[in-house]
């Protein structure tokens, strides 16, 4: 990565300079875990029991937000009733006997519980994916939406809806979203690798360019389609939401989350190695090239599946890894479970805001995550710009 020092001959825009400066020195200074890793590759020492406490706190926060998620909706149900219905469903009639309307039970169990679970699964998956992508490209500004992967998945899904190519059965949308994500990731990396090495600047710029092209393509597909249903369907895919959550849609994202988290955890040491730098990783016997490719496919699959069930929800995969690394350090063995918990909390919280702020109307949840995440991204850029200035 030190090979990517800007060419003094070329005058560059401020953004490029900021992006280029992002991975090496400034990050090392401000992300303690990152620095620890640089010195002691692959070691989990340093935080110890402190990390466990944070994990427990994150789990508790997730539980609180999940319960809050059951209490609000377009039909008013008393908070006590909501909790009683949930307890009754879990423990049976012997603890709490039903005194509520049956329809309220249906509302809680058939719409709100799956919705909270879906939001949690998607948030956790996006956060884990974001953390993995940031490690494999060693760039803190990377994330599923910044690299255009989410847009690629959405475009893949929209192409299928536009021409009704449902030949592959129930999972056609999921498969096409995955293929869209994979193809986009492939193009972005192909562009970024031009010239032999993949610089973070090229990577982010290629991602931004692909996002723009793909969202334009999606709009084009909608506007030229004679199908009146397509526009309202595509709005969902491009802004994201959990309104269509159902129990039968949950297994896929749940399996994706579990599989993704387990695979990423199994590779945690290698991810740690990679973040320490290609040279050190190679020196320690890692086939960097193959490992990156495998992780890219994993990231594309996870992003594709989340987009296919909940649309594009931006910024979760970008900002959660930063917050978590700040709290528990950059060792992936600890950071990955923590980022999953925090990602789930974030989307459940965002969804709660999205459906209560202008109740009974619902906002697309992507608006809330972008409202929170956009400024965070800008702050990240500003912070790195200052770091760059003082380093000179």
């Amino acid at each position, binding site marked *: 990565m030190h090979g990517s020092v800007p060419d003094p001959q070329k005058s560059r825009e401020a953004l490029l300079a900021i992006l280029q400066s992002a991975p090496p020195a400034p990050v090392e200074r401000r992300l303690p875990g990152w620095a620890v890793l640089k010195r002691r590759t692959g070691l989990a020492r340093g935080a110890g029991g402190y990390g466990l406490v944070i994990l427990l706190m994150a789990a508790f926060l997730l539980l609180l937000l999940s319960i809050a998620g059951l209490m609000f909706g377009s039909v008013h149900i008393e908070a006590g009733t909501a909790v009683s219905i949930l307890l009754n469903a879990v423990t049976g009639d012997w603890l709490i006997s039903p005194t509520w309307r049956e329809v309220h039970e249906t509302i809680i169990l058939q719409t709100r519980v799956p919705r909270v679970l879906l939001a949690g699964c998607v948030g956790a998956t996006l956060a884990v994916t974001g953390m993995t992508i940031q490690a494999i490209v060693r760039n803190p500004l990377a994330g599923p939406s910044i690299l255009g992967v989410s847009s690629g998945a959405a475009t893949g899904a929209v192409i299928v809806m536009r021409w009704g190519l449902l030949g592959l059965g129930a999972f056609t949308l999921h498969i096409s979203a995955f293929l869209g994500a994979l193809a986009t990731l492939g193009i972005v990396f192909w562009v970024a690798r031009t010239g032999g090495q993949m610089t973070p600047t090229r990577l982010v710029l290629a991602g931004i360019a692909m996002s723009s092209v793909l969202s334009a393509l999606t709009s084009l597909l909608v506007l030229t389609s004679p199908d*009146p249903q397509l526009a309202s369907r595509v709005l969902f895919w491009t802004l994201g939401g959990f309104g*269509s959550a159902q129990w039968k849609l949950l297994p896929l994202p749940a399996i994706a989350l579990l599989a993704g988290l387990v695979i990423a955890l199994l590779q945690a040491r290698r991810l740690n190695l990679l973040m320490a730098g290609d040279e050190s990783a190679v020196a320690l016997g890692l086939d960097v090239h193959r490992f990156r490719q495998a992780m890219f496919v994993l990231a594309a699959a996870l992003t594709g599946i989340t987009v296919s069930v909940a649309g594009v929800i931006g910024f979760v995969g970008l900002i959660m890894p930063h917050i978590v690394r700040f709290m528990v350090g950059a060792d992936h063995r600890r950071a990955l479970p923590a980022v999953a918990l925090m990602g789930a909390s974030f989307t459940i919280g965002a969804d709660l805001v999205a459906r209560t702020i202008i109740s009974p*109307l619902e906002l697309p949840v992507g608006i809330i995550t972008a409202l929170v995440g956009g400024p965070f991204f800008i702050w990240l850029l500003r912070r790195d710009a200052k770091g760059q200035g003082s380093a000179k």
Partner: protein
Amino acid sequence: MTAFSATTRLLAGAFSLGLLLAAPALGQAANFPYTDENCGVTTVYDAPPERAVTLSNNATELMLALGLEDHIAGTSYMANLKISPEYEAVYNTIPILSPLVATTEQLIEAEADFVYAGYPDGFSESRHTRDQLHDLGMKTRLNVEGCNLGPFGFEELYAEIRSVAGIFGVPERGEALIETLSGRLDAVAEKLEGVEPIPVFIYNGGEAAPNGVLGNTLLSEVVSAAGGQNIFADVANRYGQVSWEQIAEREPAYIVVFYSGTESGQVVDDPAGQLGQGRVDMLNANPVIASVPAIAEQKFVLVDSVQGQPGPSSVAAVERLAEAFHPEAFR
């Protein structure tokens, strides 16, 4: 022996009573099971739905026109628009679940068994898909204009009426309604005999670039039936962005200003003033179309989505527009 005959008599009595009770049920059973093919979704009805919920004003009016108020558990998405006067009294006796599209939770709370949408946005991933509602025990129908890929005329509206009447086992009411509506259309056509259709632009808002109502809508056919010709009838879509230059070029003699009760998904307090008159002001302020006959002569007519969306009130729209376009024919 006496016991035997008593039993026989009792049995015979029970049998004849059973026949009597079965008679109306048999009449109904003749229409059921009813299979509804709609926008790629096949639904089988074993009996008429008892707790229908409508997701748009035109769906509400179509059901009320068929006298199905006893089968409606609630209506939604009227925003601040007014239902047509002939349905007002009955409409006010039915719960209004939401000024916007009823949410999944509201549908469950209303214990809906049938959900009828008049616009395509009634069912989508961002609210509730038809599949999702079916899993919750609710059957669904979407007005065919909302999934249609070609022009949508009055024959298609009649087919929609027949389908809904079929679902509720009242085909004869459907035929009666169609007869009334087509009779009113014939009366308009008779008055308009020999008149030359005038070019009409149907404006659906938009300041920087105008949004037009295009060829694949019933509103476009309404304009035709009223002695007009939608200047964008050749564009095979429902709504879409056109250009001020095209409007200047096609010189409409009349402009139909179409508006709904919501803007950006929010209920508008005074739709006729804010959206209807507001759009007229926008048209008047545009220099590119200032010399178009409709603007020069201030030929505007406001149509809200109660009359502008496909339903029984589309015929009332034809009557209003025909009088506006060709006042001489109605003198």
